[in-house]
């Protein structure tokens, strides 16, 4: 059964510390994520969402800090944030 689940088209952006996955066929363009992003990186995209209204994308403000607030508040689960894997774990660990 899980195999039969529909795949949702994905647009993936890299922004700051975040890998920003956006599923346009889920995004209804409500803008809630835009308002919540602490670094204002989310803005309207040229891509159209589910209702023919613009979807969103990162890259409109300061770099993403991968706080996942946008993912949390999206009523449509249209955003999935992954943290950019830390390149040099040892280095990162030494600079708190």
């Amino acid at each position, binding site marked *: 059964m899980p195999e039969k689940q529909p795949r949702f088209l994905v647009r993936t952006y890299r922004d700051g510390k975040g890998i920003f996955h956006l599923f346009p066929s889920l995004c209804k363009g409500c803008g809630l994520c835009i308002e919540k992003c602490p670094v204002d990186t989310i803005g309207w995209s040229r891509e*159209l969402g589910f*209702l*023919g*209204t613009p979807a969103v994308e990162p890259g409109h403000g300061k770099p993403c800090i991968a706080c996942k607030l946008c993912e949390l508040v999206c009523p449509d689960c249209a955003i999935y944030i992954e943290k950019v894997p830390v390149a040099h774990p040892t280095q990162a660990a030494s600079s708190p």
Partner: protein
Amino acid sequence: MSIARIVLGGEGGQGVQTIAEILAEAAYRSGLEALYIPNFGVEQRGGVSLAFVQLGDEVVAVPKFRRAQVVVALSDRAIQRTADYVTRETTFIYEASAAVDPSFLPREAGRLLPVPAVKLATEHLHPRVFNVLILGTVVGVVDMVEETALKAALEGLLGHKFALKPELRELNYRALGEGRELALTA
């Protein structure tokens, strides 16, 4: 043709009901008989929105009908939902800014009239007058409504917005004009 029957279909936010309401009101102000009825379901948004307008020189007694002279479809889903109303006499107006799957288009339609309204509105005018552009095309096709009546109806429905942003009025007039032209040339 004594009564023109028009079906309009689109997505929740596309302004189909506004087109229909202005159209009906304009017909009424032109001294015609007119009847407009929206379809409405439990979904406020997200469903396909349909509108039924009839106008002409005899009393319109029945709000719904089975076949339309003009069908307007603003989305893929709307093309499917309005297909039943199409006959050989129908002018089928559809939004054609993005690629439309031609297999969806009703073959039996007398005339297929693609209108890239989103594109035109976005490029020349303003995305938000997209539906008024479509209205222009419909008015061009139906050709029963008086220009002054149309403007008065527009004023009635959007006047409060024009009051805030007077440049909107001109934009809307231009959209109407561009739409009407499409009806004649396309």
